[in-house]
Protein backbone atom coordinates (compact mmCIF):
# COMPACT_ATOMS: atom_id res chain seq x y z
CA UNK A 1 0.00 0.00 0.00
CA UNK A 2 1.27 3.47 -0.86
CA UNK A 3 0.60 6.45 1.40
CA UNK A 4 1.32 10.06 0.46
CA UNK A 5 1.57 12.34 3.49
CA UNK A 6 -0.19 15.57 2.51
CA UNK A 7 1.32 17.40 5.46
CA UNK A 8 4.83 17.08 4.01
CA UNK A 9 4.18 16.92 0.25
CA UNK A 10 5.03 20.17 -1.54
CA UNK A 11 3.64 19.10 -4.91
CA UNK A 12 6.87 18.86 -6.92
CA UNK A 13 5.47 15.68 -8.56
CA UNK A 14 8.91 14.15 -9.14
CA UNK A 15 7.36 10.79 -8.20
CA UNK A 16 4.81 11.00 -11.04
CA UNK A 17 7.66 11.48 -13.53
CA UNK A 18 10.33 9.16 -12.15
CA UNK A 19 8.26 6.10 -11.18
CA UNK A 20 9.31 3.53 -13.82
CA UNK A 21 5.81 2.00 -13.86
CA UNK A 22 3.77 5.22 -13.74
CA UNK A 23 2.02 4.33 -10.50
CA UNK A 24 1.36 7.96 -9.60
CA UNK A 25 -0.74 10.61 -11.27
CA UNK A 26 -1.02 14.30 -10.49
CA UNK A 27 -4.32 15.03 -8.77
CA UNK A 28 -6.82 17.16 -10.68
CA UNK A 29 -7.90 19.13 -7.63
CA UNK A 30 -5.79 21.47 -5.52
CA UNK A 31 -5.57 20.60 -1.85
CA UNK A 32 -5.88 23.14 0.97
CA UNK A 33 -2.19 24.13 0.60
CA UNK A 34 -2.86 24.95 -3.07
CA UNK A 35 -0.78 22.13 -4.57
CA UNK A 36 -1.43 19.11 -6.77
CA UNK A 37 -0.67 16.09 -4.56
CA UNK A 38 0.29 12.86 -6.42
CA UNK A 39 -2.26 10.04 -6.24
CA UNK A 40 -1.12 6.40 -6.51
CA UNK A 41 -3.81 5.32 -9.00
CA UNK A 42 -2.06 2.23 -10.42
CA UNK A 43 -1.13 0.60 -7.11
CA UNK A 44 -1.45 -2.92 -8.52
CA UNK A 45 1.49 -2.19 -10.88
CA UNK A 46 3.84 -1.29 -8.00
CA UNK A 47 6.83 -3.62 -7.55
CA UNK A 48 7.98 -1.88 -4.30
CA UNK A 49 11.32 -0.88 -5.76
CA UNK A 50 11.38 2.08 -3.39
CA UNK A 51 12.61 4.62 -5.95
CA UNK A 52 9.78 7.03 -5.11
CA UNK A 53 10.69 7.02 -1.39
CA UNK A 54 14.30 7.87 -2.35
CA UNK A 55 13.39 10.54 -4.88
CA UNK A 56 10.74 12.30 -2.75
CA UNK A 57 12.58 15.37 -1.36
CA UNK A 58 10.15 15.76 1.53
CA UNK A 59 9.93 12.19 2.85
CA UNK A 60 6.21 12.17 2.17
CA UNK A 61 5.84 8.71 0.58
CA UNK A 62 5.61 5.39 2.38
CA UNK A 63 5.52 2.11 0.48
CA UNK A 64 4.41 -0.84 2.59
CA UNK A 65 6.26 -4.11 2.12
CA UNK A 66 3.15 -6.29 2.43
CA UNK A 67 -0.18 -5.58 0.81
CA UNK A 68 -2.32 -6.37 3.87
CA UNK A 69 -3.58 -3.74 6.34
Amino acid sequence: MITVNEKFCKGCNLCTEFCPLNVYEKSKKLNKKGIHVPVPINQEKCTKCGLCTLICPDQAIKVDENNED
Partner: protein
Amino acid sequence: MDRKMENPLMKYLRRDRLPTIFCAGCGNGIVMNTFFKGMEMAEIDFENLMLVSGIGCSSRIPGYISCDSLHTTHGRPIAFATGVKLANPEHDVVVFSGDGDAAAIGGNHLIHGARRNINITVICVNNSIYGMTGGQISPTSPRGSYGSTAPYGALERPFSLSDLVTAAGATYVARWTTAHPIQLSNAIKKGLQNKGFSFVEVVSQCPTYFGRKNKMRTPIEMMQWMKESSILKIKADKLEESELEGKIVVGEFQDKVEPEFTDNLCKLVEAKCVTGKPTSIRSAYMGG
Protein backbone atom coordinates in the same frame (compact mmCIF):
# COMPACT_ATOMS: atom_id res chain seq x y z
CA MET B 1 -1.06 11.19 10.77
CA ASP B 2 -0.41 7.76 12.18
CA ARG B 3 3.33 7.12 12.63
CA LYS B 4 3.00 3.69 11.03
CA MET B 5 2.02 5.38 7.78
CA GLU B 6 5.11 7.60 7.67
CA ASN B 7 8.25 7.25 5.61
CA PRO B 8 10.75 4.87 7.31
CA LEU B 9 13.45 7.55 7.11
CA MET B 10 11.38 9.79 9.36
CA LYS B 11 13.02 8.24 12.44
CA TYR B 12 16.26 10.06 11.62
CA LEU B 13 14.64 13.50 11.34
CA ARG B 14 13.83 16.20 13.88
CA ARG B 15 10.07 15.95 13.71
CA ASP B 16 9.42 19.38 15.24
CA ARG B 17 11.43 21.09 12.45
CA LEU B 18 9.40 19.59 9.60
CA PRO B 19 8.35 20.34 6.90
CA THR B 20 11.72 21.57 5.64
CA ILE B 21 12.19 25.10 4.29
CA PHE B 22 13.51 23.74 0.98
CA CYS B 23 11.61 24.74 -2.16
CA ALA B 24 9.31 22.20 -3.81
CA GLY B 25 11.46 19.74 -5.73
CA CYS B 26 14.76 20.84 -4.18
CA GLY B 27 17.58 18.31 -4.49
CA ASN B 28 18.62 18.62 -0.84
CA GLY B 29 15.82 16.31 0.27
CA ILE B 30 16.98 13.63 -2.18
CA VAL B 31 20.53 14.01 -0.84
CA MET B 32 19.14 13.49 2.68
CA ASN B 33 17.32 10.28 1.62
CA THR B 34 20.34 8.89 -0.20
CA PHE B 35 22.59 9.74 2.75
CA PHE B 36 20.33 7.76 5.11
CA LYS B 37 20.29 4.85 2.69
CA GLY B 38 24.07 4.95 2.31
CA MET B 39 24.46 5.20 6.08
CA GLU B 40 22.24 2.14 6.60
CA MET B 41 24.17 0.18 3.97
CA ALA B 42 27.52 1.15 5.47
CA GLU B 43 26.20 0.11 8.94
CA ILE B 44 27.27 3.39 10.54
CA ASP B 45 26.00 3.90 14.09
CA PHE B 46 23.61 6.88 13.98
CA GLU B 47 24.55 7.78 17.59
CA ASN B 48 28.22 7.99 16.62
CA LEU B 49 27.60 10.31 13.68
CA MET B 50 28.63 13.95 13.63
CA LEU B 51 27.38 16.25 10.89
CA VAL B 52 29.13 19.54 10.14
CA SER B 53 27.87 22.18 7.74
CA GLY B 54 28.65 25.71 6.66
CA ILE B 55 26.29 28.29 5.19
CA GLY B 56 23.86 27.79 2.32
CA CYS B 57 20.70 25.91 1.45
CA SER B 58 22.38 22.50 1.55
CA SER B 59 24.09 23.36 4.82
CA ARG B 60 20.69 23.41 6.48
CA ILE B 61 20.44 19.62 6.07
CA PRO B 62 22.11 18.74 9.44
CA GLY B 63 19.57 20.98 11.16
CA TYR B 64 16.85 18.49 10.22
CA ILE B 65 18.71 15.32 11.21
CA SER B 66 18.46 14.28 14.86
CA CYS B 67 22.11 13.56 15.58
CA ASP B 68 25.04 15.68 16.77
CA SER B 69 25.53 18.56 14.37
CA LEU B 70 27.58 21.71 13.98
CA HIS B 71 26.41 24.67 11.90
CA THR B 72 29.54 26.70 11.33
CA THR B 73 30.79 29.82 9.58
CA HIS B 74 30.72 30.28 5.83
CA GLY B 75 33.19 28.04 4.01
CA ARG B 76 34.79 26.57 7.12
CA PRO B 77 32.97 23.27 7.77
CA ILE B 78 36.00 21.16 6.79
CA ALA B 79 38.20 23.10 9.22
CA PHE B 80 35.68 22.48 12.05
CA ALA B 81 35.29 18.84 11.01
CA THR B 82 39.07 18.38 11.18
CA GLY B 83 38.96 19.62 14.77
CA VAL B 84 36.06 17.30 15.67
CA LYS B 85 37.81 14.31 14.12
CA LEU B 86 41.10 15.02 15.88
CA ALA B 87 39.43 15.56 19.25
CA ASN B 88 37.75 12.16 19.04
CA PRO B 89 38.91 10.00 16.13
CA GLU B 90 36.12 7.50 16.85
CA HIS B 91 33.42 9.85 15.55
CA ASP B 92 32.14 9.37 11.99
CA VAL B 93 32.36 12.94 10.73
CA VAL B 94 30.33 13.97 7.67
CA VAL B 95 30.39 17.43 6.12
CA PHE B 96 27.40 18.73 4.16
CA SER B 97 28.39 21.62 2.00
CA GLY B 98 27.20 23.50 -1.04
CA ASP B 99 29.20 24.52 -4.06
CA GLY B 100 29.56 28.13 -2.92
CA ASP B 101 30.56 26.95 0.53
CA ALA B 102 33.07 24.27 -0.48
CA ALA B 103 34.42 25.64 -3.77
CA ALA B 104 34.28 29.42 -3.52
CA ILE B 105 34.80 30.65 0.01
CA GLY B 106 36.13 27.40 1.48
CA GLY B 107 38.16 26.23 -1.51
CA ASN B 108 41.40 26.23 0.45
CA HIS B 109 39.96 24.17 3.29
CA LEU B 110 38.69 21.65 0.75
CA ILE B 111 42.01 21.11 -0.99
CA HIS B 112 43.96 21.02 2.26
CA GLY B 113 41.54 18.55 3.82
CA ALA B 114 42.11 16.36 0.76
CA ARG B 115 45.88 16.89 0.96
CA ARG B 116 45.93 15.75 4.60
CA ASN B 117 43.77 12.72 3.81
CA ILE B 118 41.87 13.05 7.09
CA ASN B 119 39.11 10.49 7.57
CA ILE B 120 36.01 12.63 6.92
CA THR B 121 33.31 12.36 4.27
CA VAL B 122 32.38 15.53 2.40
CA ILE B 123 29.05 15.54 0.56
CA CYS B 124 29.02 18.57 -1.71
CA VAL B 125 25.58 19.47 -3.04
CA ASN B 126 26.46 21.25 -6.27
CA ASN B 127 23.47 23.16 -7.63
CA SER B 128 25.62 25.39 -9.91
CA ILE B 129 24.26 28.61 -8.45
CA TYR B 130 24.03 30.56 -5.18
CA GLY B 131 20.47 29.58 -4.32
CA MET B 132 20.09 31.17 -0.90
CA THR B 133 21.18 34.69 -1.84
CA GLY B 134 19.26 35.13 -5.07
CA GLY B 135 20.78 33.22 -7.98
CA GLN B 136 24.29 34.61 -8.43
CA ILE B 137 26.79 32.72 -10.60
CA SER B 138 28.93 30.32 -8.59
CA PRO B 139 32.32 28.75 -9.42
CA THR B 140 30.60 25.63 -10.75
CA SER B 141 28.00 27.32 -13.02
CA PRO B 142 28.32 25.88 -16.53
CA ARG B 143 29.68 28.18 -19.23
CA GLY B 144 26.85 30.12 -20.83
CA SER B 145 24.34 29.57 -18.03
CA TYR B 146 22.31 32.52 -16.83
CA GLY B 147 22.14 33.95 -13.34
CA SER B 148 21.28 37.24 -11.70
CA THR B 149 24.93 38.34 -11.98
CA ALA B 150 25.26 36.99 -15.54
CA PRO B 151 22.25 38.22 -17.56
CA TYR B 152 24.12 37.47 -20.85
CA GLY B 153 25.46 34.06 -19.73
CA ALA B 154 28.49 33.12 -17.64
CA LEU B 155 31.79 33.69 -19.43
CA GLU B 156 34.11 31.75 -17.14
CA ARG B 157 34.68 28.05 -17.34
CA PRO B 158 33.28 26.05 -14.42
CA PHE B 159 35.32 24.35 -11.71
CA SER B 160 35.27 20.55 -11.85
CA LEU B 161 35.32 19.90 -8.11
CA SER B 162 35.82 16.15 -8.37
CA ASP B 163 38.90 16.59 -10.57
CA LEU B 164 40.23 19.25 -8.20
CA VAL B 165 39.85 17.07 -5.12
CA THR B 166 41.30 14.03 -6.93
CA ALA B 167 44.35 16.08 -7.84
CA ALA B 168 44.63 17.32 -4.25
CA GLY B 169 44.95 13.74 -2.99
CA ALA B 170 41.55 12.53 -1.72
CA THR B 171 41.26 8.74 -1.55
CA TYR B 172 37.62 8.40 -2.61
CA VAL B 173 35.99 10.78 -5.08
CA ALA B 174 32.68 10.25 -6.89
CA ARG B 175 30.19 12.43 -8.70
CA TRP B 176 26.52 11.60 -9.30
CA THR B 177 23.40 13.61 -9.83
CA THR B 178 20.14 13.55 -7.86
CA ALA B 179 18.60 11.75 -10.87
CA HIS B 180 20.78 8.71 -9.97
CA PRO B 181 19.67 8.06 -6.35
CA ILE B 182 20.71 4.38 -6.21
CA GLN B 183 24.22 5.00 -7.55
CA LEU B 184 24.51 8.03 -5.29
CA SER B 185 23.64 6.07 -2.14
CA ASN B 186 26.21 3.41 -3.11
CA ALA B 187 28.81 6.16 -3.53
CA ILE B 188 27.93 7.62 -0.12
CA LYS B 189 28.22 4.14 1.41
CA LYS B 190 31.68 3.68 -0.11
CA GLY B 191 32.66 7.16 1.00
CA LEU B 192 31.61 6.45 4.59
CA GLN B 193 33.47 3.13 4.63
CA ASN B 194 36.61 4.60 3.07
CA LYS B 195 39.37 5.37 5.57
CA GLY B 196 40.59 8.74 4.35
CA PHE B 197 39.20 11.88 2.76
CA SER B 198 36.07 10.97 0.79
CA PHE B 199 34.38 13.46 -1.49
CA VAL B 200 30.97 12.82 -3.00
CA GLU B 201 29.82 15.56 -5.36
CA VAL B 202 26.07 15.58 -5.99
CA VAL B 203 24.94 17.62 -8.98
CA SER B 204 21.59 18.86 -7.72
CA GLN B 205 18.70 20.89 -9.05
CA CYS B 206 17.70 24.39 -8.01
CA PRO B 207 14.41 24.95 -9.87
CA THR B 208 13.81 28.26 -8.10
CA TYR B 209 16.93 30.06 -9.39
CA PHE B 210 19.02 27.94 -11.76
CA GLY B 211 15.96 26.44 -13.42
CA ARG B 212 14.02 29.69 -13.67
CA LYS B 213 16.92 31.54 -15.27
CA ASN B 214 17.87 28.70 -17.61
CA LYS B 215 14.45 27.78 -19.07
CA MET B 216 13.88 24.74 -16.84
CA ARG B 217 11.20 25.99 -14.53
CA THR B 218 10.07 22.74 -12.95
CA PRO B 219 12.15 20.25 -10.94
CA ILE B 220 11.04 17.52 -13.37
CA GLU B 221 12.58 19.38 -16.34
CA MET B 222 15.79 19.96 -14.38
CA MET B 223 16.14 16.32 -13.36
CA GLN B 224 15.44 15.14 -16.90
CA TRP B 225 18.14 17.51 -18.15
CA MET B 226 20.60 16.07 -15.61
CA LYS B 227 19.69 12.52 -16.53
CA GLU B 228 20.06 13.16 -20.26
CA SER B 229 23.27 15.19 -20.14
CA SER B 230 25.16 12.95 -17.72
CA ILE B 231 27.82 10.65 -19.18
CA LEU B 232 29.76 7.92 -17.40
CA LYS B 233 33.41 8.61 -16.62
CA ILE B 234 34.61 5.48 -18.43
CA LYS B 235 32.96 6.72 -21.64
CA ALA B 236 34.00 10.34 -21.09
CA ASP B 237 37.69 9.41 -20.77
CA LYS B 238 37.69 8.34 -24.41
CA LEU B 239 36.16 11.60 -25.67
CA GLU B 240 37.78 14.94 -26.47
CA GLU B 241 37.33 17.87 -24.13
CA SER B 242 35.32 19.81 -26.72
CA GLU B 243 32.83 16.93 -26.98
CA LEU B 244 32.17 17.08 -23.26
CA GLU B 245 30.94 20.69 -23.33
CA GLY B 246 27.59 20.83 -21.52
CA LYS B 247 27.86 17.24 -20.27
CA ILE B 248 27.97 16.11 -16.65
CA VAL B 249 30.66 13.47 -16.16
CA VAL B 250 29.45 11.04 -13.48
CA GLY B 251 31.07 8.06 -11.82
CA GLU B 252 33.98 7.23 -9.54
CA PHE B 253 36.98 9.48 -9.96
CA GLN B 254 39.26 7.97 -7.35
CA ASP B 255 39.33 4.91 -5.06
CA LYS B 256 42.65 4.09 -3.42
CA VAL B 257 44.19 3.33 -0.02
CA GLU B 258 46.69 5.69 1.56
CA PRO B 259 47.94 6.42 5.13
CA GLU B 260 45.35 8.39 7.10
CA PHE B 261 46.07 11.58 9.06
CA THR B 262 44.45 10.87 12.47
CA ASP B 263 46.04 7.39 12.61
CA ASN B 264 49.45 8.86 11.92
CA LEU B 265 48.92 11.60 14.50
CA CYS B 266 47.75 9.17 17.23
CA LYS B 267 50.76 6.95 16.57
CA LEU B 268 53.07 9.96 16.80
CA VAL B 269 51.49 11.10 20.10
CA GLU B 270 51.88 7.61 21.58
CA ALA B 271 55.48 7.31 20.39
CA LYS B 272 56.58 10.70 21.68
CA CYS B 273 54.67 10.59 25.01
CA VAL B 274 57.09 10.73 27.99
CA THR B 275 54.60 9.90 30.77
CA GLY B 276 53.56 6.65 29.05
CA LYS B 277 49.89 7.65 28.88
CA PRO B 278 48.89 10.07 26.14
CA THR B 279 46.25 12.50 27.36
CA SER B 280 45.76 14.79 24.41
CA ILE B 281 43.38 12.47 22.50
CA ARG B 282 39.85 11.80 23.79
CA SER B 283 40.87 13.29 27.17
CA ALA B 284 37.66 15.31 27.36
CA TYR B 285 35.65 12.11 26.95
CA MET B 286 37.60 10.00 29.44
CA GLY B 287 37.61 12.53 32.25
CA GLY B 288 41.40 12.63 32.23
